[in-house]
């Protein structure tokens, strides 16, 4: 028996901001879930199971918050799963939900990911004072910046590439009403002139800290046939993990990322991702990760990713648009960030992306990663079912 095809028929997200002071945790997740239900023209009663994801519980100070949120998400009397795979969790959560449909365990599943970072402070949650350990010497950027320097050394990329990515993503965000940062007066010069925080990372090349949630309704062929709007179809999906730190680990292009992408392309029958994929939503928390991941995902050869960025290929009107939504650089509720990538990919192939729609997008990649560049989750969605 082959797998049941999986369709995305509903997508909803909150308006993402630094602090959603007007809603409770339940109110935040319900805002995304209700929008997804409305998009699918379904009710809570139509949902068979709920799969929820978020990053560490210390961010909100609620242990296993899905227990508290069960009623808010209409899960009473239903199965509910809670996924946690660090920064990749938004993507992993969607894939766990997709498997419930693919395995024909359930017909229609609500999947949702969230973070309400304003309830605490992300840096506090990420750096609890563990005894005996060397104190963290440099905030979040200090973890990523040395890897970026390694990439620059390896690829010979010019120093301006990071700024180009930030400038592009922030302009894309202006077209996305849900994005957190709307910098109407953004210019390349402003990005270049922003303070160097963790050299080589400038302030404008970092992601914000956001409150937000994202939800999707996944369903089977029968559910898709009833959907009021054209669905996005999952053509491939995979997760890969490698250890946090190990002798020989390549932080610039982790093998887990390469293997994960290769698995997705194999499932989807993609042999030349650069030509056959129409756009990509890639988890880029610091702008330099765009060229790095372009290589890791097989869109460019080793050391060549920055050339695509520099040539404008990844612009919204380029021939491989990347982060049409404005990306993580413009919106980052950590636990939800991966699912927002997956959802944006689905919006694109459904033709529902509004002002940031890529004309004729038929196959789009959604990508998430987390931990020390160790957990990867990806899906490729298309405008037609996998068997057509």
């Amino acid at each position, binding site marked *: *028996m*082959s*797998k049941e095809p999986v369709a995305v028929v509903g997508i909803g997200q909150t308006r993402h901001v630094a602090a959603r002071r007007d809603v*409770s*945790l339940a109110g935040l997740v319900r805002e995304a879930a209700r929008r997804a239900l409305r998009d699918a023209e379904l009710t809570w009663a139509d949902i*068979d199971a709920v799969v929820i994801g978020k990053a*560490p*519980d*210390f961010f*909100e*100070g*609620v*242990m*296993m918050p899905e*227990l*508290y*949120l*069960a*009623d808010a998400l209409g*899960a*009473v*009397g*239903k*199965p509910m*799963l*809670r*996924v*946690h*795979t*660090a920064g990749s969790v938004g993507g*992993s959560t969607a*894939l*766990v939900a997709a*498997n*419930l449909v*693919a*395995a*024909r*365990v*359930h*017909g229609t599943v609500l999947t949702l990911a969230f973070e309400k970072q304003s309830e605490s402070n992300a840096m506090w949650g*990420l750096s*609890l004072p563990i005894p005996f350990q060397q104190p963290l010497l440099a905030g979040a950027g200090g973890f990523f910046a040395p890897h970026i320097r390694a990439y620059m050394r390896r690829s010979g990329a010019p120093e301006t590439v990071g700024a180009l990515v930030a400038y592009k993503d922030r302009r894309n965000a202006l077209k996305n009403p849900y994005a957190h940062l709307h910098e109407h007066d953004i210019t390349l010069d402003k990005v270049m002139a922003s303070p160097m925080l963790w050299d080589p990372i400038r302030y404008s090349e970092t992601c914000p800290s956001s409150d937000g949630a994202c939800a999707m309704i996944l369903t*089977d062929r029968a559910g898709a046939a009833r959907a009021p709007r054209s669905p996005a179809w999952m053509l491939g999906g*995979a*997760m*890969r*993990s*490698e*250890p*946090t730190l*190990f002798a020989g680990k390549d932080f610039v292009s*982790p*093998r*887990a990322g390469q*293997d994960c992408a290769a*698995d997705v392309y194999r499932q989807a029958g993609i042999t030349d991702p650069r030509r056959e994929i129409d756009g990509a939503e890639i988890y880029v928390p610091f702008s330099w990760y765009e060229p790095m991941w372009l290589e890791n995902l097989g869109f460019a050869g080793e050391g060549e990713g920055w050339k695509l960025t520099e040539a404008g290929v990844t612009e919204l009107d380029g021939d491989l648009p990347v982060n049409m939504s404005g990306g993580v650089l413009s919106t980052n509720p950590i636990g939800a960030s991966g699912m927002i990538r997956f959802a944006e990919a689905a919006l694109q192939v459904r033709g529902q992306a509004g002002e940031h729609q890529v004309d004729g997008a038929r196959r789009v990649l959604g990508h998430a990663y987390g*931990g*020390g560049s*160790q957990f990867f989750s990806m899906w490729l969605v298309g405008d037609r079912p996998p068997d057509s």
Partner: protein
Amino acid sequence: MTSAPRDREIAVVAFAQTDHRRTSEELSEVEMLMPVLHEVLDSTGLKTADIDFTCSGSSDYLAGRAFSFTLALDGVGAWPPISESHVEMDGAWALYEAWTKILTGDADTALVYAYGKSSPGSVRDVLTRQLDPYYVAPLWPDSVALAALQAQALIDAGDTDEPALAAVASRNRAAASTNPHAQLRGPVPQGDHLLQPLRTGDCPPIGDGAAAVILAAGDRARDLCARPAWIRGIDHRIEAHGLGVRDLTDSPSTRLAAERAGAFERPVDTAELHAPFSSQEVVLRKALRLGEDVDVNPSGGALAANPIMAAGLIRIGEAAARIHRGRSDRALAHATSGPCLQQNLVAVLEGEPR
């Protein structure tokens, strides 16, 4: 709800667990977990590279550290990179995720593990952080207090009394005398009220431990295990969070999960119930319609060893191991999560006729 027949047979083919102890402070989590991973792999002859999917369950709040599961992965040997996932839940739900992964046909084998160290923190206080963060958590009602409210509701309803609860506790600990892994083995004084009506004997020991299970599909399972424990059904359901909106003397989510798992289609001979408190076994027996002829918790259950986040997976492992040994033909395994049995999972396992 879709309920198409699923034509993949999936079985538990191996199970291993630590000796559960009050503390394992001399070991990090990965040092505690790794021998169990080796044992469960060795018993099938599989290596990490032979495993198609890996899934684990654990809790950052228990560990007191964010992303605590990432270091546990070191014990697996995830190189070359592996297809892997993690639930912030008891390992029984990790097993459920792995079961769905195998059902899709994308995997034929899966490694599932879970671990929990309750010794570093005060687990009664830690678990208060699971509660409604606006109306309940600020009052710090601990896990024993909530279980005691449930126990009193059962007593008021005439479903049990203190001597009956003592008998449940004593029967579980007596059964544990033949379980070399249990933390409490043999008689334990019923003791004073910890939180009336619950006495110390009605409550689980606090301790550290880990467990691992291997799942395999079809002929692969038959190759790996002389008598696979076939998962005939598995389902889980959740209830409303607020204790004040639930009937604490009943567990409709357990009953529904059991129905969906096919538990009521034919009698089981064994049941491994994840009932950390004696009173919760009373609720579960009623919801699952278990008669006196069913051998309940031959392992001693969670009253004999309760490594949080692993104790539910251990119920499935213990039920499966009993089938492997030929001591059971059809067993029910149950796992729970949340205050007063809020979320429940039921699996029905069978061995082929002998």
